[in-house]
């Protein structure tokens, strides 16, 4: 039993088909539960009720980065081992990640207006998220521009590798360019400062929900891609006969 068995599309379809019926309800329940539970927490003494947008903002930001990392891993697997499911999963993940980045940016803007007095600030964290969003857009655009699926998978894979390096480089380059307005990490094991448990547990639930929701969406989209491939193969066979 090795993980590479799931590179077999039939095996992948069977396993994910069995997973989705319970993954999707868990994802929706945890997301809704986390956000609603977060909404019922008491107001923060400094930020007032605006603190509750954190239950959308932090999990979305976390998934925006995690989905990119997942795309990077999937691209490397495709380039090294040529498993088609891996390339399709990377393709399926990109729009999910782009939407997560957009949610993080939009909720950040809505929170920033009353708190910082501005919708947008060229702060390092905000800027690097905008850059990440640009990378997502470029990646999706390149996928949709190339017709041959294998070439598209190769080219986007290379773009993902180079883009990862430069996204990381930009993340630290912008620190150089502007001092931050954004607060530090919301959850950190290293730093002594911790959020009160009242806020922490709903946040954990919302993070779990967003992670499960992203996973479910990526799996559904990957399954769609596999089915589209099968359909194209069937049509090609019919045309030939």
């Amino acid at each position, binding site marked *: 039993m090795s993980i590479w068995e799931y590179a077999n599309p039939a095996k992948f379809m069977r396993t994910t088909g069995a997973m989705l019926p319970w993954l999707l309800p868990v994802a929706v329940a945890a997301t809704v539960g986390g956000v609603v539970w977060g909404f019922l927490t008491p107001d923060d003494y400094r930020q007032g009720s605006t603190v509750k947008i954190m239950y959308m903002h932090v999990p979305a930001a976390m998934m925006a980065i995690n989905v990119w990392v997942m795309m990077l891993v999937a691209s490397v697997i495709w380039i090294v081992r040529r498993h088609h499911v891996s390339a399709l999963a990377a393709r399926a993940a990109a729009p999910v990640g782009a939407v997560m980045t957009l949610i993080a940016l939009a909720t950040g803007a809505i929170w920033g207006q009353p708190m910082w007095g501005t919708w947008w600030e060229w702060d390092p964290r905000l800027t690097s998220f905008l850059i990440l969003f640009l990378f997502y857009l470029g990646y999706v655009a*390149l996928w949709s521009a190339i017709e041959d699926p294998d*070439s598209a998978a190769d080219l986007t894979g290379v*773009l993902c*590798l180079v883009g990862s390096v430069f996204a990381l480089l930009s993340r630290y380059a*912008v620190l150089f360019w502007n001092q931050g307005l954004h607060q530090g990490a919301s959850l950190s094991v290293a730093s002594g400062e911790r959020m009160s448990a009242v806020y922490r547990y709903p946040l954990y639930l919302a993070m779990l929900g967003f992670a499960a929701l992203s996973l479910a969406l990526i799996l559904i989209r990957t399954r769609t891609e596999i089915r589209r491939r099968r359909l194209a193969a069937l049509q090609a066979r019919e045309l030939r006969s």
Partner: protein
Amino acid sequence: MRALLLRDLRLAIRAGGGFGLGLCFFLILTVLVPFGIGPARAGLAAVAPGILWVGALLACLLSLDRIFALDHEDGSLDLLATSPLPLEGVVAIKALAHWLTTGLPLVVAAPVFGLLLQLPFAAMPWLVLSLLLGTPALSVLGAFGAALTVGLRRGGLLMSALVLPLYIPTLIFGAEITRRGAEGAPVAAPVALIAGITLASAALIPFAAAAALRVNLR
């Protein structure tokens, strides 16, 4: 390799606008900016480092599609791919030729444009140095973008969308050097960083670009 470099340079010059195109774009931009911002000395001097760097970046972008597109159309790229020269070397040479025809003229002419934008004299050497160190990275990264989109019929817009995010770190450090130079602040850190970006890109990006070219020539 030298023959390929000379051929590319000759083509760029004889096809017209090899040296001129980027410079002309740069000139128009520097002339337009004061009309947009207003002629006040202080205002212009404040934005000059950024405008000059953004201008250099866009001027570089303007001619990127010529790195591989023409050779791809007439089939000479296939010949180069089957020649004994490794494709990585071809990419590096073509990026170098692109830099010699667009980056280098900008480096040489930048002080004049800086003068037009009221850039303080103290910043001039730093402007030239930052462009000299930074523009090779722009050419190499541009060659990567061009290699990714060489097979597409209308790849120009897509290429810009792919390449511009890659240019951000270079732009940040390049403009920072010039700005610090204008203020007389220490510049050692951004100089080292931009040189690092250029060296690393020149060493590693040709491999990625060659991989992309191989896919597109398949």
